[in-house]
């Protein structure tokens, strides 16, 4: 078992190391430092198992921290004004429902198909039982240590006895054997993965989530005392031991794992499926187009790139036009609602003045959220540019700039429709609420410019960074980072409840400057940067 474990461990380590180096090479600045790192040297070092252990341990520790922050940290943060005993009750409730039951039973690992299992068991014919058990035990060992660290810290904050936390973590990890047992027994009995029996699996998962959240929100958590907790944890541990005995004695690993890890399930295509899925929302559905449309002469008056662009937007109206119509409908309803409210609701005038003068940053997030430009650039790549960029004529500076400006016009037009409707509605509701045009008009203009801003922003990133590869991956860390930052900034704007007056002029100014800079950069560099990698 040791040999199997060592081999598999080293191999996954070199696979993940290679992936890390490959990614690092692509980050600007940092990439230079990695430029001369050759895969040969990292792949063949004999002390790899040490690195493998460290990487795996760090990954597990990080994962534990992250899940603790999300699962435990968020509820404790939301209810930070509760007394310590209430917060302790929330914590223990979350631990029992989400860590023991949800984590132990829903998150089973042994039978879930994975690339590693496919490679090691199916392709390389490693001993399945040795591979699975050694890996599982090793992972539980790392988890136990990480969780011990994390929960001892949380325990110290919430003043929970150290022995209780120690028993809790040990029991939690033992209980995972029980969860694995349930999955394997289910598979043996029904010949189907529990995680693929959607009704049962998701029903159970949703029930557990409800069980986790509802008592906290209603403030009806059970106030456990120490003795009952010890009893509960020991029961979980005993169940875990039963599970462990089952896993140890189970002798169908080879057959079961071979059945579960099917090529069609994941296999070598797992990446392609994943990549393809990330473009699923922009795929062309050929069944949607009838012969009449495909034979139509609607655009026969147009020529060249104009013709191409017109057909492109026509065939993608599901992505671009339908949301616009929906948004306009929503705005219309809001407009009527606003007018009605200005007569019926007592403090509406004051609230509305507040929205216009102080909370206008909320529109930054709204405009970010409804802009279809990001999705459309994905469609442009997947359905059009990925192929045409392979041809010389399409890569010429003139062609690149022509498609850029044609696309910008169309996209800006579609995105301006909801923007203008929102702007006009604001002004109209303003009139009913005795908020003057002098106050509402700047906001309306701001919204229109924001819509333009997000359109140009997405198209600019696409033409300057062109982040997608022919393999349909986003291979540009800078693109991911900028997108994350854009989202984060827009989201922050949602949190500003009282914006200072000068912010509007500053935001307006910055937006206009950004638009100009982006356009200039595209005109200078796009013909060099807009290529397929």
């Amino acid at each position, binding site marked *: 078992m040791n040999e199997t474990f060592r081999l598999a461990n080293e191999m996954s380590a070199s696979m993940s190391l290679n992936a890390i180096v490959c990614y690092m090479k692509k980050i600007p600045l940092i990439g230079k430092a990695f430029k001369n790192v*050759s895969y040969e040297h990292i792949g063949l070092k004999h002390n790899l198992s040490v690195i493998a252990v460290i990487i795996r341990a760090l990954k597990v520790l990080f994962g534990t921290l992250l899940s603790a922050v999300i699962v435990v940290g968020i509820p404790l943060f939301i209810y930070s004004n509760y007394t310590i005993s209430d917060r302790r009750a929330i914590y223990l409730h979350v631990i029992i429902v989400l860590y023991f039951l949800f984590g132990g039973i829903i998150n089973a690992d042994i039978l879930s198909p994975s690339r590693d299992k496919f490679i090691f068991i199916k392709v390389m014919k490693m001993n399945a039982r040795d591979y699975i058990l050694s890996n599982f035990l090793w992972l539980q060992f790392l988890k136990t240590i990480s969780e011990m660290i994390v929960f001892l810290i949380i325990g110290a904050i919430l003043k929970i006895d150290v022995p209780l936390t120690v028993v809790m973590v040990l029991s939690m990890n033992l209980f995972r054997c029980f969860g694995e047992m349930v999955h394997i027994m289910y598979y043996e009995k029904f010949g189907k993965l529990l995680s693929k029996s959607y009704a049962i699996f998701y029903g159970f998962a949703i029930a557990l989530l409800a069980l986790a959240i509802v008592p906290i929100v209603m403030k009806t958590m059970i106030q456990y005392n120490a003795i009952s907790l010890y009893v509960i944890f020991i029961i979980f541990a005993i169940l875990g031991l039963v599970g462990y005995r089952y896993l140890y004695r189970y002798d169908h690993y080879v057959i079961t794992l071979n059945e579960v890890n099917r090529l069609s399930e994941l296999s070598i295509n797992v990446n392609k499926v994943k990549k393809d899925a990330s473009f699923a929302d922009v795929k062309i559905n050929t069944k949607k187009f009838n012969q009449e449309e495909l034979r139509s002469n609607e655009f026969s008056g147009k020529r060249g790139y104009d013709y191409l662009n017109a057909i492109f937007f026509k065939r993608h109206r599901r992505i671009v036009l339908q949301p616009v119509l929906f948004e306009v409908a929503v705005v219309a309803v809001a407009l009527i609602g606003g007018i009605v409210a200005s007569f019926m609701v007592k403090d509406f005038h004051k609230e509305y003045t507040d929205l216009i003068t102080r909370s206008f940053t909320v529109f930054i997030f709204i405009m970010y959220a409804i802009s279809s430009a990001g999705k459309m650039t994905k469609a442009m790549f997947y359905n059009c540019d990925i192929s045409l960029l392979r041809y010389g*004529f399409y890569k010429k500076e003139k062609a690149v700039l022509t498609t850029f400006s044609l696309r910008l016009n169309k996209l800006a037009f579609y995105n301006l429709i909801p923007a203008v409707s929102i702007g006009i509605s604001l002004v109209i509701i303003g009139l009913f609420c005795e908020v003057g045009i002098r106050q509402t008009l700047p906001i309306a203009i701001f919204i229109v410019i924001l819509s333009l801003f997000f359109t140009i922003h997405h198209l600019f990133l696409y033409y300057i960074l062109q982040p997608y590869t022919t393999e349909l991956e986003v291979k540009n860390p800078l693109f991911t980072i900028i997108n994350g930052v854009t989202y984060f900034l827009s989201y922050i704007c949602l949190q500003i409840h009282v914006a200072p007056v000068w912010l509007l002029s500053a935001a307006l100014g910055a937006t206009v400057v950004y638009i100009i800079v982006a356009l200039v950069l595209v005109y200078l560099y796009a013909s060099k940067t807009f290529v397929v990698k």
Partner: protein
Amino acid sequence: MKLVLKNLSKSFEKKQVLKDITFEFEQGKIYGLLGRNGAGKTTLFNCLANELKADSGKAYLITDTEERELKVDDIGYVFSSSILPEFLTGYEFIKFYMDVNKDKIKDDYTINDYFELMKIKEEDRYRLIKDYSHGMKNKIQMLMFIITRPAVILLDEPLTSLDVVVQLEMKKLLKDIHKDHILIFSTHILQLATDLCDEIVALSEGELELLDHSMLKDSQFEEKLVRILKEESSNE
């Protein structure tokens, strides 16, 4: 007209794929480029078509009147798996292609004339390219260079996965047009190369070698060629 490569080199990290290649291709001949998997056939094509930048060396086009560097416009490149915008119908794509390349078109055929030429049925012209079979997509790619008639035509494994009927049609077509062009054709399939090509060029060890004509007719040709390709790779 001649396509001349001068000292063309290309490496990926430490692996040198093209080693200082100097070679001449002549108009009116179909060249079969043979090489083992990974020998660098596609790399060579990509360097010529400016998909990749060569580390050093250049390609020139020499005509009766001038001698100049090879430009992207001189090249028609048929990829091994066809790469076409799938949201358009065949008709729309060809119309678009003719529009943007109108300064290069010398014939006065209509779009439908071209489709007739390629034996693409009327109903197929108005289907989305996404729904085309491999052979249909390939025909569209071939049609692209029939329309613009670039001086140099590079075909990367084009006929390998076509059915016999389309294969024959395409072979005929290539034979019909080859007089006006420099045609380079990469393939693994020896029979296709000997069948269709006037000259056979072996790419191995990063170098191009024109095989002697006498060898083509030799009954031992196959063994000899394999020996050439193998010998060189065993030196690696």
